[in-house]
């Protein structure tokens, strides 16, 4: 049996996996599902639903757990591969447009695992939305996504986690061939626990990955993200923008890693990690990690934690905005920086509306 990582393990210091330990041996229950219509992103899409470790609706996808075994080991992803009873496979042929696919994951009481596999042929396109929600029960929902983008393929993925209880661990590993494009946005808003990992492997020249995220931690939440890009070959590019907000006694953390392999010259990486604490009882941890083994590269990074600027707030109030509205406007401005790369007009409006709604829950 694969061992769960603990806080003593490198890279897991801020992860709150207590529910995984407690629920690992508890099979998922067949709980009543919450209202799915209210959960999904309001865009025209093909939709699949997974709940309690089973495929409720394959939405036209192939129902099979088929992990990419060539990926490096990862404890939670490997547990998913080992224990998943359900999964989906989505292949988009070369040059085809797969449209928008939304996969709704519902956590029911107990532990459940899912494996998603996406393969985009050369020049293919896809928008993948993953929406993770739950009911009233404690759960561990462990989701593995393995993606391969062939030359020139383009994937836009939005991960939305809006859970009330339980632990969500979602790990995406994306391999990009030459000139492939990945734009990835994680929008996680929860009073519970989450461990979100996105790992982009730039394996072909001209590949570009954008890994962005917003963590909105409220109540007793422990939200933890890892955003990692491997520049394995020359002339690849990456951008990472993460904005973390923590209120109450919540904790939010992100590790942003950029790894430039020996010989990966002309790598172009930029990373910005910023946090905001709404009360002094909350905490944000930022961990930029740059491992650069080539000399002709550009790797910009910045990282800062702060609070709402009282002078900015007063300026807005002095123009007639009540304090709560002034604060909401400042928080929106702060978090929106992570959404700037979301260029698809079909998604930018509903995702922004999603963000605004989640920020309102903070006020």
């Amino acid at each position, binding site marked *: 049996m694969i061992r769960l990582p603990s806080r003593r393990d490198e890279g897991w210091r801020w992860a709150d996996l207590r529910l995984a330990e407690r629920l690992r041996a508890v099979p998922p229950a067949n709980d009543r599902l919450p209202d799915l219509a209210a959960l999904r992103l309001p865009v025209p899409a093909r939709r699949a639903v997974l709940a309690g470790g089973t495929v409720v609706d394959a939405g036209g996808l192939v129902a099979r757990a088929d992990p990419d075994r060539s990926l490096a080991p990862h404890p939670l992803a490997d547990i998913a591969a080992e224990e998943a009873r359900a999964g989906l496979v989505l292949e988009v042929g070369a040059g085809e447009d797969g449209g928008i696919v939304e996969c709704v994951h519902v956590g029911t009481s107990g532990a459940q695992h899912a494996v998603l596999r996406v393969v985009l042929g050369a020049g293919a396109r896809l928008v993948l939305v993953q929406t993770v929600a739950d009911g009233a029960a404690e759960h561990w929902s462990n989701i593995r996504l393995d993606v391969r983008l062939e030359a020139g393929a383009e994937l836009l993925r939005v991960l939305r986690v809006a859970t009330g209880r339980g632990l969500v661990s979602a790990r995406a590993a994306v391999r990009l061939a030459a000139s492939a494009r990945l734009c990835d946005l994680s929008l996680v808003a929860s009073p519970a626990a989450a461990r979100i990992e996105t790992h982009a492997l730039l394996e072909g020249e001209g590949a570009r990955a954008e890994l962005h995220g917003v963590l909105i931690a409220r109540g007793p939440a422990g939200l933890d993200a890892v955003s990692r890009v491997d520049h394995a070959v020359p002339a690849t590019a990456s951008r990472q923008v993460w904005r973390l907000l923590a209120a109450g006694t919540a904790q939010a953390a992100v590790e942003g890693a950029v790894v430039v392999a020996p010989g990966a010259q002309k790598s172009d990486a930029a990373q910005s990690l910023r946090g905001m604490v709404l009360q002094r009882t909350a905490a944000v941890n930022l961990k930029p990690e740059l491992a650069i083994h080539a000399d002709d590269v550009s790797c910009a990074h910045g990282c800062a934690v702060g609070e709402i600027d*009282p*002078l*900015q707030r*007063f*300026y*807005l*109030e*002095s*123009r*007639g*905005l*009540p*304090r709560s*509205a*002034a604060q909401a*406007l*400042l928080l*929106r*401005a*702060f978090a*929106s*920086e992570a959404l700037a790369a979301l260029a698809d007009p079909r998604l930018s409006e509903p995702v922004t509306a999603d963000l605004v709604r989640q920020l309102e829950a903070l006020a």
Partner: protein
Amino acid sequence: MLDIRDLHVRVEDRPILEGVTLSVGAGEVHALMGPNGAGKSTLAHVLAGREGFEVTAGSVTFLGQDLLAMEPHARAAAGLFLGFQYPVEIPGVSNLLFLRTALNAQRRQRGEPEISGAEFLRRVRAEAEVLGLDMEMLKRPVNVGFSGGEKKRNEAFQMGILAPRFALLDETDSGLDIDALKVVADGINRFRGPDRGVLLITHYQRLLDHVRPDAVHVMAAGRIVASGGPELARRLEAEGYGALAA
């Protein structure tokens, strides 16, 4: 309109204002002058409701209401506008979104209907043209990347759109070249009216060459030490604050 009586204010146990009494009636423009550290900007921020200032004595009545009992946004909705000496940069919030949100927040507080998008844009265009502001600039984040002069013009622009009853202008003239000074002065002169009031805080006589005040007050060490007509400003320019502040 604005009636300040014996106002005492502390910041972290340090007295800054020590009994300010000043009254500005409807239709009047008053200038408040004085050396650095006299307490002019503190007075402006206390009137607008900024946190961190402790009023230990005195009262302020604005249009018959107890101003000090009101939240900052309610003071704005009641018609008070503070033009900042150092306008604040707010990344990520576009000028126009901010201004429309603020205008509608004020209108809601006053029980008025929200302004339509078309009407708002009509006002914006008209005001921008008068102040020589570029529409593209107004779509950018609030004051971010603006020059000192652009920031001050943006304050005048906001004042034009929000149409307050009383303008409290804190060193609106600092950092302006002579052309920008004239534009801002024209803005103040256009704002003047029988039911409006202005308190103009300034270091220098030069703004008063373009905006003729009805009264001039000199503040030093937290008190008004002299009051008079426009000639007082010219005397100060010639003789300095030293004689009055002593």
